[in-house]
Each structure stands twice: as C-alpha cells, then as structure tokens.
C-alpha cells in the first residue's frame, strides 16, 4: 500500500526536543519533516511587535538539529507560522538563523520563503467587495479596524506550501499557516486521501502532546496511507493509546468532531482508534469535506497603548480585612495625583489592581470570596504613552505603599516589594483585532513565494 511518513520534531519550534528521538525518526526514512513555529495562544504581542516568541538561541538549537538531520537524509523541511506569529520579518529572522547554521555546519538548502502578511489596500478592496466575513462570536469587520491594524496576516492552507515544494525547495519557511496544513501539504500534493492526511497533521502538529503522558516536548511520527494512518512517539518513555489519540482533537478546538481548514472541514465523526502496537495507534475513518468556498482566516493586532506595572505582596491582616476600602482609596488618590501632575483625567488611561490569592486568575467570575493570609497585588497602568503609564503606575504603587490603614495609627509601609526598581515599564500593548475570513479568488493569491539559496 502506498504510504507516506511525516515527522514532527516537536510541537513548537524552539521548545527543544530530544535529538535522539529525532534521529530515530530519521531512521524511518520520512518523506517530510514539518514543524509549527507560531500560535495566537500566547497573546497578541508577537503579532503586534514582530519580536520572535523565543530567544534566538532556542530557535538556533532546534533548527540546527533539524537541518543537520534533514540534510544528511535528504528530507525536505517545512517550518510554519515562523517565530511566533508568521510575520514577514519573522520569516526573514528564521531564514537568517538557518543561514548561520548552514555556514557553520557546511550545509546547503534551497529555501522558499512564503510570506503571509496582508496589505491594507488588499483588505480594503476585499471589504468593499463584501468578501470579508466575521467568525463567531465577532462583529463584521469595519474599515476603521483595517486602518488601525499594526500587522495583519492570512493563515495559509496547503496550496502555497505545495507551490514552494513544486519549486524544488528543500527548506520552506512559511509565515502564518494552518498548523495542520504543514503536514497535510506533501500527502495532498502526492494525491493521498485528504481525510487521513489532515487528521494525521492535526495530531502531529502538537508533537508529543497526544501521548498518554507527555513528559517533555518531543518527536512524533505518522505513517499515512489511503485508508488511515499509524501514529506514535519516538521516545520509548512515552506512548499513545487509542484514547489519548482520540482525545487529542479536544485540545484547543471548539469541537472534536469537525475542524475547519481553508479548503474544507476535517470530520472525525466516523473514526476508529485501535492499538497498532503497545505504543502506536491506528486511526481510520477520517473524512475531509471540501468547502463550497475557500476561506483564509485573518489575524491582526493593533497597538492600544503602553503598560507599566508593579507586583508586591500584602501580608497585613488589617489591610486584607477590608481590601476594597484600601484599594478604593489608593485608586482615588492616584487619579487625583495624575490629574494634578499630568493634567490627565482617569478616563484617558487604565489603572487595574489584580489580587492574586483572591481573584487574580478568574477576575469577576471568581465565586470564592475568602482571602487567605496574603495576596499578591499587581498594580497595572495602560496609557497612550509609556511616560503616562509610568506616571500612573508610579503614583499608584507609591500611594499603595504608604496609604493609611484604617486600624493603625502612624506611618505604615504596606507592600512586600520583591525587586528594585519596583515599577517595570513593560512596553507596547497590542490587542487582537480581527476574527474574520477573506474569500480570495485563489488559494495562493494572498501568499507570496520567494526563493533564496543558503
């Protein structure tokens, strides 16, 4: 039976994986190595700022292992959603790291860069044509949102990746991509049944996350054929079970049975999961329903201000006995000081107190009202400029430090401050601003392929 072997070194490039596990995977003569490098999961900062998700050394370590192995065994590599958000600069960043590795290790690659950023001109045109739709639970897109965006990417499916492979690339570094498409691209290109190809990709893109107990990030392999696929981890300390693989489509998905991709929907409703051996699982019955309309998901971030914050412990039982009173006073006094010094009204900035040990994680949804013997108090200011955020946070923290406490008479110091300086000017604050799809004329029109040799 025709078969194709796909390898995921790990679920997130830079998170590190066992070199031994990866080398075991290479011994199975894989057809392609693919690795996801980005996500919206960690928030909008990578998409807004272009700063890579991990420090450079982490990417270099993982890429070095991957590129040495790929080169030695003649296996093409696809890296997707480069360096956190898949912006053009993040693609170029990874190409730069790869170039450095190639020089140090005496390797050579034909690189295809697949860029995913979208221009405001293009988006404005598509919006005026009625070709941009909102996804649940968002409102329709406004021109204003397009104008305010710092960066916008489209999430590519398999077609631009197939184009890159068709051009002879041995290393594809792609901007924002469907994680699953990174793995489905080669099987689809070679005419494999799309159901098993997409489903295998869905599981592989998370690396060893679908094992019974993932001990650390590590390598996963799937052998895909026309009826289904076999999948398992390379590290002998980990194993997949039919339940762990079936349960994997729960992870980070709204529905475990149907998952939308640019070109259609992966449907696992009729899947069967059986042991292939004591550590691998056989999956059959995966289906892929082509969409009536090809859609490309947009992700965007806009700059909304700058943040300064501090964090301290509060251990005084008297403050904790009426925390709302204490924080209410600090808030009012901070507003007054900021107005006096900077001439700025409170509705022009945000001042938030977050109380860890009370409701730091769940905020207004928290039902538990009892405070223990201490809280962690985060004082956070977000304002139009870094200077103003710093002013607000500095007053807030200083007033909290010495605010009179109802039960005590005399000079008090209310915070256990764990660092000097106590106020951190944290930099720009971005917010996700699009949850929409574009209906393009073709699957590749929004993505540009360019080639370079390293």
């Amino acid at each position, binding site marked *: 039976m025709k078969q194709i072997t796909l390898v995921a070194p790990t679920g997130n490039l830079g998170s590190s994986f066992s070199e031994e596990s990866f080398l075991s995977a290479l011994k199975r003569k894989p057809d392609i190595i693919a690795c996801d490098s980005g996500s919206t999961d960690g928030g909008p900062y990578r998409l807004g700022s272009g700063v890579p998700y991990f420090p450079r050394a982490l990417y270099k370590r993982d890429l070095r292992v991957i590129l040495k192995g790929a080169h030695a065994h003649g296996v093409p590599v696809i890296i997707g959603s480069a360096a956190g958000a898949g912006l053009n600069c993040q693609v170029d960043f990874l190409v730069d790291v790869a170039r450095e590795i190639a020089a140090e290790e005496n390797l050579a690659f034909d690189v295809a860069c697949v860029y995913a950023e979208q221009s405001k001109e293009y988006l404005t045109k598509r919006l005026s044509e009625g070709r941009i739709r909102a996804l649940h*639970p968002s409102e329709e897109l406004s021109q204003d949102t397009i104008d305010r965006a710092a960066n916008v990417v489209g999430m590519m499916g398999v077609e631009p990746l197939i184009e890159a492979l068709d051009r002879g690339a041995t290393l594809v570094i792609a901007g924002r991509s469907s994680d699953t498409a990174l793995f489905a691209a080669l099987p689809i290109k070679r005419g494999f049944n799309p159901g098993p190809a997409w489903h295998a990709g869905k599981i592989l893109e998370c690396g060893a996350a679908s094992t019974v107990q993932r001990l650390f990030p590590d390598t996963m392999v799937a052998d895909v054929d026309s009826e289904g696929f076999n999948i398992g981890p390379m590290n002998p300390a980990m194993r997949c079970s039919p339940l762990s693989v079936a*349960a994997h489509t729960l992870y980070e998905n*709204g529905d*475990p049975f149907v998952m939308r991709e640019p070109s259609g929907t992966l449907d696992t409703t009729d899947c069967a999961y059986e042991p292939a051996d004591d550590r691998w699982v056989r999956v059959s019955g995966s289906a892929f329903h082509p969409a009536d309309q090809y859609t490309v998901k947009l992700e965007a971030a806009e700059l909304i201000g700058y943040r300064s914050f501090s964090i301290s412990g509060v251990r005084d039982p008297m403050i904790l006995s009426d925390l709302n009173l204490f924080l209410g006073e600090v808030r009012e006094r901070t507003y007054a000081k900021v107005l006096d010094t900077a001439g700025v009204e409170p509705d022009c900035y*945000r001042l938030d107190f977050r109380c860890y040990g009370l409701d730091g994680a769940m905020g207004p*949804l928290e039902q538990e009202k009892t405070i223990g013997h201490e809280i962690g108090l985060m004082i956070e200011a977000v304002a139009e400029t870094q200077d103003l955020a710093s002013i607000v946070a500095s007053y807030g923290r200083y007033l909290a430090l010495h605010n009179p406490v109802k039960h005590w008479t005399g000079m008090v110091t209310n915070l256990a401050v764990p660092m000097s300086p106590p106020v951190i000017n944290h930099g720009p604050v971005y917010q996700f601003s699009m949850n929409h799809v574009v209906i393009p004329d073709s699957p590749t029109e929004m993505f540009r392929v360019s080639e370079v040799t390293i």
Partner: protein
Amino acid sequence: MAKLGELAQLIRSKNAGPFLLTFDIMFADPKIYQHVKQSKAINAQMIGDIYGVPVEKIHFVEYDPGLAFKATIPRPITSGHVGDGDIYGAQQFGPLVQVEIPGI
C-alpha cells in the same frame, strides 16, 4: 455523591483561538464516563450558570470516542485584551472540579 475532580482523569480549560474558551472534562474509565453522561449532571446550562453565559452561546459536545465532555463559550474578554488575567485561558476550570455528581 462524588466530586467531578475525583472522577475525571483531567479537567482543563484553554483558548480555542483568542475569542473562544473551551473546557474539557475527560475520563479514563468508560463506565464512569457513561454514568456521568446518563446523570446529565454535566450540561450546557450548568456551564452557563458558572460562567455567566446564556445557554444559546454554549457549544456543548459529548465526545464518546474521547470519553469526554466539551463546552465552548465566547471568551468573557478577548485573550490579551487589557483586563484579561489569563491569556491562555488555562486556569478558568477550577469551579468544575467541585461539581457534585449524583449516584457514585
């Protein structure tokens, strides 16, 4: 009566993208999963009550192949927006651990 946290293999929450929050209640034992399923103690309404979401905005799935219940809601605040205390949405499931399941 037993608490869900004693019966489940894993209870978790996470983003399904920046705008949706998804909860998984997962079991290892098919008999326990079936008992909980038949009791109807886990349903869209109880999720709505805990998280302040109207039932029609909740996507609730009984996932037999994974021995799991899933509920997906619009995130109360978009991931990473100012005022969001949980960018990954990963620490919102605490109240589910205490839910009582009858008949065990």
